[in-house]
C-alpha cells in the first residue's frame, strides 16, 4: 500500500462521520429553514422580524459580555493561582474547577438557590434593606449562570498558559524600567493572547448556545436557544426554528473566525 492510499484510508472514518452526523443533518436543516410559508425569505425574518432580531442581539450581547467578564476574572485569578503558593491553594483550584462536571440544569438550580425567590441574596438584601433582590429568572440570572459555567474552563486554560510564560521576559521588561502595569500590557497579555482567543471562543460559543441553564431558570428569557425551543415545541414552527438554528450557527462561527484571524496576526507576531 502506498503512503498516499494509506492516508486516504485513514481519512475514511472522518469522511463517514462528517457526512452522517454533520453534512446530512445540516443540509436538511438548511433546507427546512427555507420550507416555511415565506420560503427562502424565512431566513431574512431572523433579521426583519423585531422579536427575532431583538433576541438575536440579546444573545450576542449576553455571550460577548459573558466572554469578556469571564476572561477578565479568569485571567486575574488564573495568574494569581499559578504564580503564588499558599496554604489551601490546591483545594481552591479543585473547588474552582468542580462545576466543570455540572450540566446546565444544575447550574440553573444553583443560580436559583443564590438569587431566586428563596435565595441567599434575596434573604440578605431583605434583612439589610428590607427588599428582596431576585434576579435568577431573568437574563441577569442567566449571565451569572454562564459565568459560573465558563470561568472554570477558562481559568484552567489561562493557568496552563501562564505556566508557560517566560519569567525572563518580565524581568527583562522590568530591568528596562517597565512598571508592573507596563509589564502586563507589553509582555504578559500579548503572550497570553492565543490562550485568550482559544478559551474565549469556548466561553462565547457556550454562552451563545447553552440551553439547559436558561430552560431551568425560566422559559421567557429572550435568548436564541430558548426562542428556537419555543418555536419548535410550542408553535411547531419547524421552518422558523430551523432558520434560527442556522442563523445561530453562522453568527457564532463568523464571530469565532473573526477572533481567530485577529489573533492569528498577533500569534504570528508573538512567534
Amino acid at each position, binding site marked *: 500500500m502506498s503512503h498516499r492510499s494509506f492516508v486516504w484510508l485513514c481519512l475514511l472514518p472522518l469522511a463517514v462521520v462528517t457526512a452522517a452526523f454533520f453534512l446530512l443533518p445540516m443540509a436538511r436543516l438548511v433546507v427546512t429553514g427555507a420550507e416555511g410559508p415565506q420560503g427562502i425569505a424565512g431566513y431574512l425574518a431572523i433579521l426583519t422580524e423585531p422579536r427575532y432580531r431583538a433576541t438575536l442581539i440579546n444573545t450576542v450581547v449576553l455571550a460577548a459580555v459573558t466572554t469578556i467578564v469571564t476572561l477578565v476574572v479568569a485571567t486575574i485569578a488564573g495568574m494569581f493561582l499559578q504564580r503564588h503558593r499558599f496554604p489551601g491553594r490546591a483545594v481552591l483550584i479543585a473547588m474552582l474547577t468542580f462545576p466543570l462536571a455540572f450540566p446546565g440544569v444544575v447550574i440553573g438550580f444553583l443560580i436559583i438557590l443564590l438569587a431566586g425567590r428563596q435565595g441567599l441574596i434575596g434573604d440578605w438584601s431583605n434583612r439589610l434593606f428590607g427588599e428582596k433582590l431576585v434576579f435568577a429568572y431573568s437574563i441577569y440570572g442567566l449571565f451569572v449562570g454562564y459565568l459560573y459555567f465558563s470561568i472554570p474552563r477558562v481559568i484552567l486554560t489561562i493557568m496552563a498558559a501562564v505556566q508557560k510564560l517566560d519569567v*525572563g521576559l518580565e524581568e527583562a521588561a522590568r530591568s528596562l524600567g517597565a512598571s508592573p502595569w507596563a509589564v502586563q500590557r507589553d509582555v504578559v497579555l500579548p503572550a497570553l493572547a492565543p490562550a485568550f482567543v482559544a478559551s474565549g471562543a469556548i466561553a462565547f460559543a457556550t454562552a451563545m448556545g447553552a440551553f439547559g441553564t436558561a430552560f431551568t431558570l425560566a422559559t421567557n428569557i429572550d435568548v436564541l436557544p430558548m426562542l428556537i425551543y419555543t418555536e419548535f415545541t410550542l408553535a411547531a414552527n419547524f421552518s422558523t426554528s430551523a432558520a434560527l438554528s442556522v442563523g445561530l450557527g453562522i453568527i457564532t462561527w463568523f464571530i469565532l473566525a473573526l477572533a481567530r484571524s485577529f489573533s492569528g496576526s498577533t500569534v504570528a507576531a508573538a512567534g
Partner: protein
Amino acid sequence: MSASAGHGAAVRIEACGKTFADGTRALEPATLDISSGETLVLLGPSGCGKTTMLRIIAGLELPDAGGKVLFDGKDMTSVPIERRNVGMVFQSYALFPNMSVSDNIGYGLKIRGVPDKERAARVAELVALTNISGLENRRIDQLSGGQRQRVALARAVAIRPGILLLDEPLTALDAALRDRLRGELNRLLRALGITTIYVTHDQAEAMELGDRIVVMQKGKIAQIGSPREIYFTPQSRFVAEFIGAANIIESPLENGHLVLPGGRQAIGGDANMPAAVAMIRPETIRVIEAGSAPLSGIIDSVSFIGDRQRLVVSGASNRLLTVDAPNTVQANAGERVGLLISPDAVRLLPPED
C-alpha cells in the same frame, strides 16, 4: 579601566547572603566593591551562586536580612529593579517576541517617554554599534543566535544604564562565534565605560573581559583579583585547578625543596613546614636532558596540539605531571626527560580544609 570611564556607577555589596525559601543557601554573606567603569567577572562552576549574586545586584532578588546593595554610596537594597537603571542581558536573551528588533531595542526608551525622533536616533546608533544593520524590522524568531545576543546587548545599553549586568551572554552560542563575539564584546564594554558585572563559567571569557575576577565556590568568594593574580597566585587549590591547567603536588618539604620520587625541586621563599601542597603550571616546566636535571621522569604520552605539545610525565612527582612544551621540542613516549622548573613558578597553596 577605559579612558571614557566615569559615567558608570560604583557598586558596593555589603554582607549580602541569600537563602531561598526552600532553605537552599545559595550565597554566603559576601562583601564586594566594584569601582565605576570597571568590568568585574563572576566566575565559578555551575551552582556556585553567580546568578544569585547578579540578581541581588539587579534587584531581582532581595538579600537576606543585613545585606545591603549600594550604588554610588546610595542604599538601593529596597529599590525595585525598574528604578535601579541597570541594563541586563539574560542567558536566554529574553527578547520580546511580540516586538520587532528596533522595538525591542527602543523599549526602555519608550517606557521612559523619550520622544519618537530621539528614540529612533538612539536605536539607529545602537544598531550600528552592535553591527545589526538591516535587521531592524525583523521579528525575533527570524534572527540567529549571535544576532539575538547583539539585540539583547543593544536593548540593555540603550537606556544608558549606570551598571550593565550580563549572565552568561555567550554560553548559548557555538565555540567559534563565542570567540569572535567575546572580542567584540570586550571592545564594546571598554568603549562604553559602563560598570559591568559579567557572569560566566568560562575562564577564557573571564580572563579576556575582566579587569578583576571574582572566583566563586559553593556560594563563597574564593578569591578576588586581576586575571594575572588569579592565574599566577591562586590562593587555594580550588582556584588553581579551576583556572587554567595546574599540577598539584603534595609532598614533604626539606631545606626549601619538595622531595619527589623523581628528584628534588627548589621552591621560592622559605617555608618552614614539614609538608606542602604546591601548584606548578604546565607551561612553566622546561624539558631538558635527563642527566643534568635535578628532577626527571618518563614521558607517558605526547599530544601535539599545534601551537605546543602536551606531555604527560610519570615518575617525577607522586602523580602524573602535565608539561606544555614548545612544538619544536623532540619528545617521544617512553623516553626519560629532565624537568627544569624555576623556584618562582612553584606556588605553595594552603593545605586543603
